[in-house]
């Protein structure tokens, strides 16, 4: 098939020595494919199907599984703890996404406007802003838990210098989620900035210049040129942030472990606790499929809805 352009005699030789069909070809395909397909089947596809099967049972991981059909799903959908877990996750997303997007966009615009002569400075700055992105969540969560320590943390000490008495941060039910949001936005700011900066640099300068000639104010240029032309990058950031936001776990586990008083119990912490604290593997599997369904629906809605606000070209 790939050889249609080759001279006939070459094709003939090729077909004689290397038959396209037959056992030898099948063996070649298998050798290339199986090193990936076998582990993928064993460690991703089988668990996926296993999870569906488990979700239809009541199971404490020790005794026999007991069939309950859709019982786990019905119970979870009516369970206030599930509602709370989804609400806390939404709270996280609602705080995190605007913060990281506004911060990332602001920084990207500041760096984009820097003159060409400061190219080295700009790349150093990009490197610094990207540092938290490559750092592990555990380290970031620990650093922020220490910075936001209510009694001996440096943030509250600094606030004290200005006569502000700092809150209890992760020890206070009202401030625990904002603490997690703050740490998360700090970690991902560089990632969002890099993506938006690339988007900004793809906007032809002529557009801005033409608008300036027409006397458009900075705000109007931002609103009617920058934002619409940046919308594909914005779309990417929103889709990725929502997918990751629904799965928030590491920072919650380290900073608050779902507390205080369940104030930061998110969906994945609930899945973890259902399995390993309450011995309810079936309910945990059902909840993880509910989470998958929600993420899938949200993503599909976004892809469908992008025509309304995403401008390509």
């Amino acid at each position, binding site marked *: 098939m790939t050889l249609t352009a080759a001279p006939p005699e070459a094709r003939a030789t090729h077909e004689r020595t290397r038959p396209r069909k037959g056992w030898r*070809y099948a063996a070649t395909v298998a050798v290339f494919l199986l090193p990936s397909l076998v582990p993928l089947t064993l460690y991703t596809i*089988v668990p996926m199907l296993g999870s569906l099967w488990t979700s239809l049972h009541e199971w404490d991981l020790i005794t026999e599984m007991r069939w309950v059909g859709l019982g786990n799903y019905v119970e979870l959908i009516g369970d206030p703890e599930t509602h709370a877990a989804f609400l806390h996750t939404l709270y996280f997303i609602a705080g995190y996404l605007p913060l990281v997007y506004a911060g990332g966009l602001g920084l990207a615009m500041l760096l984009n406007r820097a003159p060409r002569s400061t190219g080295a400075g700009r790349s150093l700055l990009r490197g610094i802003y990207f540092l938290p992105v490559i750092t592990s969540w555990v380290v970031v969560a620990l650093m922020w838990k220490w910075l936001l320590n209510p009694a*001996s943390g440096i943030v509250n000490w600094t606030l004290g210098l200005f006569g502000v008495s700092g809150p209890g941060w992760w020890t206070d039910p009202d401030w625990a989620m904002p603490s997690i949001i703050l740490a998360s936005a700090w970690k991902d*700011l560089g990632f969002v900035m890099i993506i938006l900066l690339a988007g900004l640099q793809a906007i032809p300068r002529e557009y801005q210049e033409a608008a300036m000639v027409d006397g458009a104010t900075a705000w109007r240029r931002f609103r009617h040129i920058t934002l619409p032309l940046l919308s594909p990058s914005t779309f990417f950031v929103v889709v990725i942030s929502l997918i990751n936001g629904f799965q928030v776990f590491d920072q919650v586990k380290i900073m608050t472990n779902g507390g205080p008083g369940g104030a930061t119990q998110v969906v994945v912490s609930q*899945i973890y606790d259902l399995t390993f604290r309450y011995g309810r593997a079936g309910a945990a599997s059902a909840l993880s499929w509910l989470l998958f369904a929600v993420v899938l629906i949200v993503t599909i809605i976004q892809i469908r809805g992008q025509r309304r606000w995403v401008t390509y070209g």
Partner: protein
Amino acid sequence: MGKFLRYLLVGTGALVMVFPFAWAVITSVTPGEAVLAVPPDLTPEGASLDAYARLLETLPFWRIVLNSAWIGATSTVLQLVTSAMAAYAFARLPFPGRGALFAVYLTTLMMPLPVLVVPLFIEMRTFGLVDTYFALLAPTIASAFGVFLLRQAINQVPREFDEAAVLDGAGHFRIFLYVVLPLIRPALATFAIFGFMASWNSYLWPLIIIKSPEFMTLPLGLATLHGQFTTEWDVVMAGSVISVVPILILYVFAQKHVIASVAQSGLK
């Protein structure tokens, strides 16, 4: 907006990014009780490496660092090999059901990790693999993301190159090794960096599957350290500092590459 204001904002931002790291280093060398002192001491007198010494007493820390390093390296190499080979099959070797199989790969890509960890834990337990190195590596041997990324790259290699090699009598293995792989080196490098970072930073799976300190990786070791009795912040920060250094060195060398590939991902 004035130039001065712009530099001030960007500079302040950079300070906010760097400060937590600097503070972690300072805390880690602050001697004993001074750690909890109010007001905090920005330049502690008599800096000491005592926290680092205690870190090594509490956990088999060097072993944990080595675990992270070799698990990260092994999982990166395994993913590179398995993904590049499968990507070659998907790009260059037509076979019945290829499209459907690729769709299966893409579906697994959309699966959130939390959906997989519980049944994967049960599977590992069934085979008596809980608390082993193999269990840490198993979910990272194959990567649907890698297959997807590398297939894109291989599709961009002109087929004339393969055909020329075929005329020279090369089979698929030689084409793969000597024609395709050298031409997709940038994609391989990107995937290697992200694969290593993902393994080095991974927390949820090790948390579930590993119990003994000797099999722990860094994130789990640090989290365990933090969870013990009252947290000794100087020791925890010492551990954090040590765990950041290797990835930081890697990053300094690969920075341009990492940032370029992230920047590109949003441009489609």
